[in-house]
């Protein structure tokens, strides 16, 4: 009888809870009943597999993937890089990482964004890449600007890049946001503050990576991502329920 090795239980006190009154949109979009805990089956330990046919090699270069030939987006040139690892510290190779962000002025290329900062004609604002055999990834982009949003009347999102990561299993699927060290809006942001533990917030704050910064060219920030780890098959699983 095949019973798959499970992923470690997600620590629901580490992640933000569903109901977070200060992030107002969550109030009517949060389930009231408890989640039903499931032991992993084949439906959870499997997940989509992506390959180099799915994406273009330049998809991770936001400086160029939407710019007109010979032109560049406006803003501080930035490399965001890091490793995708699991809770056991092992690199997650060949996994799809997608990223999206506002331009340097804080404006998204989205028909629903009406912020008065201008659209940058040379900046799309999205990228994607596959991690290498060690779980390493990088994006080349511009540093996004902070932007206002209607939660409180005077609220600004700290500069951030949205990240979507797959891992190897549907149970590892994750969307998060990467902030930048030193940004005074981080500690004021109701979305950041949905995360109860300061140490968890710190995982989302990319650190200046001076050694990887390219002299006279591009600043570099390090953002490592940790996905759920998995049990070894060492221990026999007990029969569930009765």
């Amino acid at each position, binding site marked *: 009888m*095949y019973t798959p090795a499970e992923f470690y239980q997600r620590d629901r006190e580490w992640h933000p809870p569903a109901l977070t009154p200060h*992030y107002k949109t969550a109030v009517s979009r949060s389930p*009231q009943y408890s989640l039903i805990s499931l032991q992993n089956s084949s439906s*959870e330990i499997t997940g*989509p597999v992506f390959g180099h046919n799915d994406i273009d090699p330049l998809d991770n270069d936001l400086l160029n993937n939407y710019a007109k030939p010979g032109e560049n987006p406006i803003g501080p040139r930035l490399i965001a890089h890091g490793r995708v690892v699991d809770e056991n510290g092992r690199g997650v190779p060949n996994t799809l990482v997608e990223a999206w962000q506002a331009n340097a002025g804080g404006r998204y290329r989205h028909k629903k964004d009406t912020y008065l900062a201008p659209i940058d004609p040379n900046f799309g604002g999205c990228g994607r890449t596959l991690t290498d055999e060690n779980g390493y990834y990088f994006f080349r982009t511009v540093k996004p600007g902070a932007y206002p949003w209607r939660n409180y009347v005077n609220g600004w999102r700290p500069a951030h890049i*949205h990240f979507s990561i797959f891992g190897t299993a549907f149970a590892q699927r994750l969307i998060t946001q990467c902030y930048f060290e030193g940004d005074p809006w981080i500690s004021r942001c109701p*979305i950041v503050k949905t995360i109860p533990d300061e140490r968890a917030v710190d*995982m989302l704050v990319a650190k200046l990576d001076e050694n990887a910064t390219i002299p006279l060219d591009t600043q570099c920030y390090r953002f490592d991502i940790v996905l759920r780890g998995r049990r070894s098959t060492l221990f026999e699983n007990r029969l*569930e329920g009765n």
Partner: protein
Amino acid sequence: MTSNTPEYLKETPSQTAGPYVHIGLAPGAAGFDIYKQELGWDIAGPNAKGERIRVEGVVVDGIGSPIKDVLLEAWQANSEGVYAHPECEGNVEDGFRGWGRVITDFETGEWGFDTVKPGATMGRNGRMMAPHINLWIVARGINIGLNTRIYFEDEVEANAKDPVINLIEWEKRRATLIAKRSERDGQVVYRFDVKIQGEDETVFFDI
């Protein structure tokens, strides 16, 4: 720290996908064309065997309004119950991925995707799971993606034996996972409305 202390990393915490999730995951819907191909629009591919179906619905918030900036991802086995993944025994048809990504109509909140009906899959401890599609839902205001499952109305017997459905203590709530079957212009359509909160709230899983 002694050498006996197990050292594990903590998972990166989740954050909401926000209102502009389309830019990253479905840029065409955000209003621009950037990639040679967007991912997740073709779940089953042209060679998949089995019954071709369409699955549709809305995701409704606690006030009863459709959520118009939601993004859903589907993960399913093929008609033989095989997932397109190296850890799943068996083979899938060439071009069958089993994964789909869908967003709602910005005006109505309606979403839908075309696929094949999945087969029953092996669950834990040799117990078969009824045909189902795994669903993951993110949106502005959802702090961590919500997992649920779509089961099929016409699989009465398999559903009755399904180990996951049976884990739900409140029989009344089980109905929230069952998609309703109908036909429209010769096409099989399953309706699966998700209620995030309140009366008849959809069952969500901690997987």
